[in-house]
């Protein structure tokens, strides 16, 4: 099991590094897809099939495809190389390192409860019950947020009739 984890995790990390270092935006997006797929594979090894499938549907099927579509529409489509850095790289580097330090501190100081719990049979049922029961307010708030984003996108894109 450990070997499987190491293999998948290292591929995921490599893909993530590729995402930020690729000089071609399309390649960066494809590396991102690879990283998403790796995360889905990690979920699958943790017996979280629902989460793995949702990860692929949402992140690869929707988000990554939209990112690629946006790249293809906004850039000169056949234009290849682009610099990975711009003038703001120093501020970005400071922000990213601070975030890394904070996250690392958090991960190192937290004691994780690593008892191996058996996976219940009716996981999907429990997730569904959670969505409409215990976590109904966050779920609904997220839905409203998404609807608002959708309406906003349509408002921005629609033709204005004068």
């Amino acid at each position, binding site marked *: 099991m450990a070997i499987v984890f190491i293999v998948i995790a290292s591929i995921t990390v490599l893909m993530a590094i590729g995402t930020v270092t690729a000089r*071609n935006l*399309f*390649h960066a997006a*494809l590396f991102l*897809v690879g990283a998403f797929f790796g995360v*889905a594979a990690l979920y699958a090894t943790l017996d979280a*099939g*629902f989460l*793995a*499938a*949702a990860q*692929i*549907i949402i992140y*690869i*099927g*929707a988000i*990554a*495809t939209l990112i*690629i*579509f946006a790249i*293809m529409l906004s850039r000169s*489509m*056949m234009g290849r190389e682009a610099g990975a850095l711009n003038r703001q790289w120093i501020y970005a580097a400071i922000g990213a390192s601070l975030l890394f330090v904070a996250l690392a501190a958090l991960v190192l100081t937290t004691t994780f409860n690593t008892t191996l719990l058996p996976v219940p049979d009716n*996981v*999907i049922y429990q997730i569904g019950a959670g969505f409409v029961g215990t976590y109904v307010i966050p779920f609904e708030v997220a839905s409203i947020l998404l609807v608002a984003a959708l309406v906003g996108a349509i408002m921005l894109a629609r033709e204005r009739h004068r």
Partner: protein
Amino acid sequence: MDLSQLDLRNLGLLFNQLLTSFGVPPAVVPIIGSLLGALLLLIFALTLVLGLVWFERKIAARIQDRFGPNRVGPFGLLQTIADALKLLTKEDITPTNADRVTYNLAPALAVFHVIMALAVIPFANNVIGANINVGVMYIIAFGSIGSMAALMAGWSSNNKYALLGGFRVVAQLLSYEIPLGLAMMIPVLAAGTMNMNELAEAQYRYAGFGWYIFVMPTAFFIFLVATLAEGERAPFDLLEAESEIVAGFNIEYSGMKFAWFFLAFFLNSWVLAAIATTVFLGGWQGPFVDQIPALGVIYFLTKTLVVFWLLAWIRATFPRLRIDQMMSYCWKFLVPLALVLFMVTAVVLKLNLPHPLEGIVLLAANVVLLLGAWWLLGREQRKQIGASKRAFTPEIPRL
């Protein structure tokens, strides 16, 4: 051998015992079993395509009053093999300035996503590659990887037509994934499970009329239309519309790499037919399947072939849609219809009616919804035709 003893579910167990008796360590046995199962599925899928190509060409020929392949082998059965050999000998061309890695990865990914979906299709009761609880979601997930493959092919070919094909892929596959998923969720709602095997099992009621195609024909209609679009088949074959964008995203591919796209196309159609069979046509259900489980395979393959024949029939008869028609048909008709149907089904199921009544109410709701939606669609179309007629009527100058 007594046929009733031939329970396919025990085959794996028997095989495992056989391996153990050969002295294979027990820890390795399930791994060998899984690998062999995967290999079997793969070989089955790849040989199946040879037959499917011939089958579809023959059907199209019959419908269009031709003979179809009839030179190589009896009834032209070996025509596909000849074609595959021809493709193997063709020159493998990579366009200059093509993005090499992406260009070579795309055909592999196109076949990969189809074959992965095979893993959750039950060929008979519990004869299934991976009996996972999220089968339906798994299928939708790998469907979305298919659009990624076409997109990669379109972009990396360094060709305008290929890129346009890639754009169309995103528009079409992404849009039709929504009615496809929603239509599959309606049987899931009724069966209370996303497991493909349990979905087929849940359709045992009313002596064959419990198949979801009879209980919820509207959901099947939505699924079928979305299937045509997801399978890139006419009337939704805009990705490779010859008259508009030459050949779409795979225009620059030649030889064996083109054959991979071809393979993915036919296999995808078959897999979609198999999903339709499992979700709406009762999968391996059929007479006497309780006594002789092996019959399930025959029922399943027959039903799948019938659905595939239906897809081929549609492909051979319908003209291609325009891209705006295709998009509005999805977003303004299929998606709202699927959403309304989803809600109505949820309400009907919540009523907890006794069993024959529940099926009848669901059927009635489906028929009413479909007829109502068609009526609305027809009214809207008449209005549009009227408007365009007025727009084209020449104005008579007043004297």
